[in-house]
């Protein structure tokens, strides 16, 4: 078994420009400029980046929705350019998108969760079991006979996640899954994601631009302008406050506070990312 579920090497990508014959061809804009990234099994990785940083594009390379123009992507040791293995790749790495409305296919929750299994030709008895398991693992079992439009945004997104889990993938890529949700829905979805990672050992790749979400991960990859500019545990990544600001990203409020304190000459540690730690550090400062 491969150590890394996903391994990208020097991936380059650009969209084909469309242009009139009369016009001069526009220069090709590279979306990804040689991205190399290994995702080990069982981890929870967050990919952070501003709009247009290429974070969604690299995500779409992880289950062969897009194929690299240069470089290679391996999923569980399979080259994503191998067309014959396409469905093996997609059943290993599932993908959840931003808008839950646009990824639910069926008019009944359980039918939607079964959609991938129906496509894969899973026998009906096994399908029933896998659908029920998937719905239970996202806490939506009671809603199995509802119609999707009766559900809230967070519930719909959990149904979409269940639809992926039913495939029993080793890895789930979530492309800004909370961007269209209200705070309550966001909390529900994040809780579900963490549970899947902790309890079922599913590898999670969370594409996001929310710092609070990225802070939940055990590794953060920061992208800017088609390149990876930082890669490390949240503490280390967020401690580079200036670099983060330069690429248009925020850091958690407590880290920013520590950074500002440090800038004004007080001894402080920007490796702090949670509120309790920050409170303790402030107490210590005040006592001195």
């Amino acid at each position, binding site marked *: 078994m491969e150590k890394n579920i996903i391994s990208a090497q020097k991936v380059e990508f650009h969209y084909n420009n469309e242009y009139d014959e009369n016009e001069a061809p526009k220069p090709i804009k590279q979306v990804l400029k040689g991205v190399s990234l290994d995702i080990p099994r069982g981890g929870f990785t967050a990919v952070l980046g501003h709009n247009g940083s290429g974070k969604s594009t690299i995500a779409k390379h992880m*289950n062969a*929705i897009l194929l690299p123009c240069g470089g290679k992507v391996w999923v569980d040791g399979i080259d994503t350019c191998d067309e014959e293995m396409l*469905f093996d790749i*997609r*059943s290993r790495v*599932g*993908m959840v*998108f931003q*808008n839950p*409305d*646009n*990824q*639910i*296919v*069926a*008019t*009944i929750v*359980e*039918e939607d969760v*079964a*959609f*991938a*299994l*129906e*496509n*894969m*030709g*899973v*026998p*009906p008895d096994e*399908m*029933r079991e896998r*659908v029920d398991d998937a719905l239970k693992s996202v806490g939506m079992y009671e809603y199995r006979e509802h*119609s*999707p*439009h009766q559900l809230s945004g967070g519930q719909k997104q959990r149904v*979409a996640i269940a*639809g*992926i889990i039913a*495939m029993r993938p080793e890895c789930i890529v979530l492309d800004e899954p909370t961007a269209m949700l209200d705070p309550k829905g966001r909390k529900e979805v994040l809780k579900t994601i963490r549970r899947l990672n902790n309890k079922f050992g599913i590898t999670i790749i969370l594409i996001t631009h929310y710092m609070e979400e990225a802070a939940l991960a055990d590794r953060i990859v920061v992208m800017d302008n088609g390149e990876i500019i930082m890669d490390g545990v949240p503490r280390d990544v967020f401690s580079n406050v200036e670099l983060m600001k330069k690429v248009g990203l925020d850091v958690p409020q407590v880290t920013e506070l520590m950074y500002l304190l440090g800038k004004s000459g007080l001894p402080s540690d920007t490796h702090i990312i949670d509120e309790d730690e920050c409170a303790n550090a402030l107490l210590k400062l005040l006592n001195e």
Partner: protein
Amino acid sequence: MLKDITIGQYFPGNSAVHRLDPRFKIIITGVFIGMLFSADGFLGLAVGAVFLLISFLLSQIPLKLMIKSLKPIVPIILFTSVLNIFFLDGVPLLRLGFIKITDEGLRTSAFMIIRIIALIMGSSLLTYTTSPIILTDAIERLLSPLKKIKLPVHELAMMMTIALRFIPTLIEETDKIMSAQKARGADMETGSLVQRAKALTPILIPLFVSAFRRAEELATAMECRCYRGGDGRTRLRQLHSTGADFFALGLSILFLDAVLLLNCLIG
């Protein structure tokens, strides 16, 4: 306001008719239509009506709902009956200037009215007792032999399913766009018909743009879930035909035979 629109007219329930295999229900509805159209006289229609009455009583659908289903066809009923009453030759019963009403005209128009009403009630019973999605599913299965002649049966059913799935979503979106345009001062309620039709443009264009965007995202999401058309697909919901299904089908064929027999005896 738009939210009140319901597509299909499913009336949830758990009656004997609801529980029938949808494939059989479609075939039985076909047999019922056969009864109505093969009937030569009122007696034949009466046999069909009895069959309808039995199904209706078993289905536990409120009578009010059945009558409501007739509302959209009132103009058609009026139109056919007027044509039949005034323009059929026969023994004149009443003369008013150039208008005459004949016995044959009255008879035929009554016959047609009963036939149309029974037809609509029968097919409404099918849609009242079967949800649109199950209906689509059943049609896909009934038509699946046609795959052999390269008819894209699965694709058609998939299109139906997606259309049904997105109707509430798009209605909600239309509502939102309408409110947004009204907030910008769009006037949709006054003016001539042409003006009002023109006022729809700023609603339809954003709606179409968003529908295309949704379609693209949905296609990607379907690809991510290994969608590859109908080949080798299995289904979560299995349809099992039971004894009751065969009994119902047998009964409907019996009634059809009765109608045909009556035709022979009387005709």
